[in-house]
């Protein structure tokens, strides 16, 4: 039950994009097309999950024993950047199809704040290994959900009669604000 609460909390209540406003560059950049956003959403979910697990190991087995917890931000940045790079090299070789689908997004993910913030928040809350894993998967799925919702809205917006001055990105900002308001309704659910 505890894990379930944590999961729902990460997906809906503390949705990283819509309530914490992290990862906004991808959120606006890749939400023009539903297919691309699904690809990106799951790429981010998998990268967040794997890098958060690695960051948890690095934090609890290297930084904590030496009393160097203040190094977490910089060491996580190094870890995530190298990990994404590694993932790109491996995917490029092992599965060209997957690389064609995800390859262009991977480098975007490497420097994204959401991928950094999940492990940082996870270690700040002193989650255990399983909690950490559930939290990471939930955050990733929450991001994917927000991205897919946004892309669906924006695909419809293309056919809507939007005032000329608001066409494109401005109306996307307004839609994002409304989505964020809607997600505010989840707060206090647990």
């Amino acid at each position: 039950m505890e894990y379930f609460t944590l999961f729902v909390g990460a997906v809906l209540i503390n949705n990283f994009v819509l309530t914490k406003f992290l990862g906004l560059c991808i959120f606006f950049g890749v939400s023009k097309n539903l297919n691309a956003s699904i690809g990106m959403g799951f790429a981010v979910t998998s990268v967040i999950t794997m890098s958060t697990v690695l960051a948890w190991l690095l934090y609890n087995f290297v930084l904590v024993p030496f009393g160097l917890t203040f190094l977490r931000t910089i060491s996580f940045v190094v870890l995530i950047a190298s990990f994404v790079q590694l993932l790109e090299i491996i995917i490029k070789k092992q599965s060209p199809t997957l690389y064609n689908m995800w390859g262009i997004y991977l480098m975007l993910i490497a420097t994204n704040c959401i991928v950094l913030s999940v492990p940082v928040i996870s270690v700040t809350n002193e989650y255990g290994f399983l909690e950490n894993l559930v939290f990471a998967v939930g955050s990733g799925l929450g991001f994917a959900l927000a991205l897919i919702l946004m892309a669906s809205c924006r695909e419809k917006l293309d056919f809507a009669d939007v005032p000329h001055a608001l066409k494109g990105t401005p109306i996307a900002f307004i839609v994002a604000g409304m989505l964020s308001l809607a997600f505010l309704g989840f707060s206090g659910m647990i």
Partner: protein
Amino acid sequence: MSYTFIAIMAVVIMTCVGIVFGFILAFADKKFAMEENPLIGEVKEALPQGQCGACGFAGCAKYAEAVVLDPDVPPNLCVPGKAEVADIVAKLTGKVAEATEPKFAHIRCRGGNGIAKMAYEYKGVHDCAAAKIIQQGPKLCKFGCLGFGNCVRNCPFHAMTMGENGIPQVDKNLCTGCGKCASICPNHVIELLPISAKVAVSCSSKEVGGVARKDCAAACIGCGLCMRNCSHAGGVKVVDHLAVVDASICHDCEEATCFAKCPTKAIAALVASAKKEEKIG
């Protein structure tokens, strides 16, 4: 623990972390190295590197990759490279190149300074698209060249210069016919003509004769004299008050007579460019 110790440890740990990840990445790079098909590199070398995108791919490198890997991509898509490059690419990839006739950009407007009348004085950003937004441009004629040189700035081969009369000029020896200028012109004034074209209409105005003439001294007024003087039936037609040359018929015309009687000289013979064939490459 003293601060010195912590500081030293921090440096040591970060160095170790960096070295470990560095080695992992170096190892992965070797282990999962991708051999790129060397043919792609050779094809890329043969392309003109104008990155014009006339082939339909995002730059020369992408086209080289596609033409080597995809059997359905023909070797003659490089417009600037013409037959020479198509031959080389065909030879490298083992595909058959079909003959393509080289083209060049032709400006369908002679309404330069003092010839086309102005509707207002434009003092905004020096850009055709920006000028077009305001009342369709500062000239009375809404079809002609706006004269702010978007085509000149965007020509990847520096084949265009802005003439003194405010109409861009195309250096046929440098023009490769990639069509970038044609796609960037907000009034679609530029057309691509085959190098063998004998005559061309240098006006885009679709206004009725009287209005067109009032707007611009060099306009095609749609009188149809060229149509009647064409030695081949249907080589020139007047569509929407504008003479249009049909390249498929006009192609073999030995002695073009259509332009001789044009009252505004909107239709004219093109100067044969013999030098064109030597230069390329």
